[in-house]
């Protein structure tokens, strides 16, 4: 068990964003969360990563309970994420965006920084090497000095994933990584996610609306609606599940088509 969520419940005013959500992720799994807009998927990510505390329920990893820990603590326990609306450091360069993820792993103290000791220069060089490594995996090294806000949309999404990866997580949460991508980009992204999962021994949980990506690479799916898990299982089962179809289309229907993104 790499990540376990039990009975997560969270209200916002009168709205129940999460209502008793449970699931479990095993090491190395690639799972997807799907569901109509407003079903609580991003809220789930926000609770797991400590941005919101749950009203009830728990989040735990192998090492123990992480419920309610602050976001930076959760990151240090090995969970990194991207955001639905891309939260890059827009006025900073590509390099600086990735560098910040290395901050918790830096091996020098403030005194070293102030006095510019050998340890400082060594660690800064090490940081630079790591950052370069990540940038080249994502083919962003030629743009290293560009400001994040000036990157094309697709590259911004890549940068956000690069930044998340640079914090050396065990679990990677991707919130709509394919949003705004065309079919060939989605295909490349699919290969890419499989590749990094392999290379970095990650456990990946992603939220997506693009069914091709979801059906193509996810080993397991969790379907949410109104803050609850309404179905879980293999992609092939899910696409035939009448409850799922009803949630997406708003009425009971026989047969399913899952090629394009489904909006309520």
């Amino acid at each position, binding site marked *: 068990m790499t990540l376990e969520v039990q009975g997560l419940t969270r209200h*916002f005013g009168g709205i129940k964003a999460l209502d008793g959500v449970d699931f479990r992720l095993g090491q190395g799994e690639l799972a997807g969360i799907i569901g109509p807009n407003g079903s609580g998927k*991003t809220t789930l990510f*926000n609770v797991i990563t400590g*941005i919101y505390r749950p009203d009830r329920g728990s989040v735990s990893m192998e090492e123990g309970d992480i419920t309610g820990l602050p976001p930076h603590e959760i990151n240090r326990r090995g969970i990194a994420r991207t955001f639905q609306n891309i939260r890059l450091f827009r006025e900073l360069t590509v390099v600086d965006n990735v560098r910040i993820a290395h901050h918790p792993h830096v091996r020098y103290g403030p005194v070293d920084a102030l006095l510019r000791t050998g340890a400082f220069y060594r660690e800064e060089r090490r940081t630079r090497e790591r950052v370069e490594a990540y940038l080249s995996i994502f083919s962003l090294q030629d743009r290293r000095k560009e400001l994040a806000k000036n990157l094309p949309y697709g590259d911004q999404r890549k940068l956000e994933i690069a930044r998340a990866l640079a914090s050396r997580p065990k679990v990677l949460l991707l919130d709509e990584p394919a949003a705004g991508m065309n079919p060939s980009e989605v295909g490349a992204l699919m290969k890419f996610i499989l590749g990094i999962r392999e290379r970095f021994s990650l456990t990946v949980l992603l939220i997506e609306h693009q069914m091709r990506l979801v059906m193509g690479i996810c080993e397991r799916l969790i379907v949410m609606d109104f803050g609850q898990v309404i179905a879980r299982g293999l992609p092939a089962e899910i696409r035939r599940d009448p409850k799922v179809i009803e949630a997406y289309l708003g009425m009971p229907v026989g047969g399913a088509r899952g090629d394009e993104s489904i909006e309520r």
Partner: protein
Amino acid sequence: MVYGIVRLINFAHGDVFMVGAFLAFYAVEKFHLPLPAVFALAAGGSAFLAVVIERLAYRPLRNAPKIAALITAIGISLFLEYFTALHQVFGPNYYAFPRPFHVVSLEIGGITFTNIQGIILLSTLASLGALQYVVYRTKVGRGMRAVSHDIVTAGLMGVNVNAVISFTFGLGAALAGVGGALYGIAYPQINTFMGVMPGLKAFTAAVLGGIGSIPGAVLGALIMGQSETMTTAYLSSTYRDGIAFVLLIAVLLWKPTGILGKARTEKV
């Protein structure tokens, strides 16, 4: 109100208040106008000034980093204060504000009232009523509320954003101008720096009561006024300015958006 719409702490507000007081001074002293005309002149002059400032200095900076507009506001505030303090203009001295009417005292139930206080109270209530009406029952008011939620979308929905913002500045300044005139009548001494503290306290009262809430602003002002008076009476007048801010910090720590403020949750 201005802050609610353009998210700008208008540091020049207190100086518009001061201009209102000076206009009222001239209205009474030089032109011997009756009271309603005094208020009208103060309100109108202040509104005009504010609209000019908005057009020349704030509008060009609407898409610039917010701090640029803020610094410009500070610059305008200083400019108004020091320019009017030049000998060639009003000069740095205090002027005695002439009473436009006789002061009459009434005694009700052991508490003494003056007609000045009565006028202040009535003017305040009237302004409050007018403001509520404008914001909630007119088209322009609806535009103001729309802009305060989402300026871009309001524009796309057909709200004339520039006009609404100018109107808001003008309206806020008109109120400040009337406030300045009232202040001159009540504390019959005016000077070009008189707006500094009231401007600051006005904003503080708004924050205390909750930005975006008109009743909140009134509540904040009442609380601040009361606490100042009580501090002067029971502690010492030298602590007076401090108490308002102690209160403010205490309230902000308890309710970060003010007493009646609406929390704006950011979608993550």
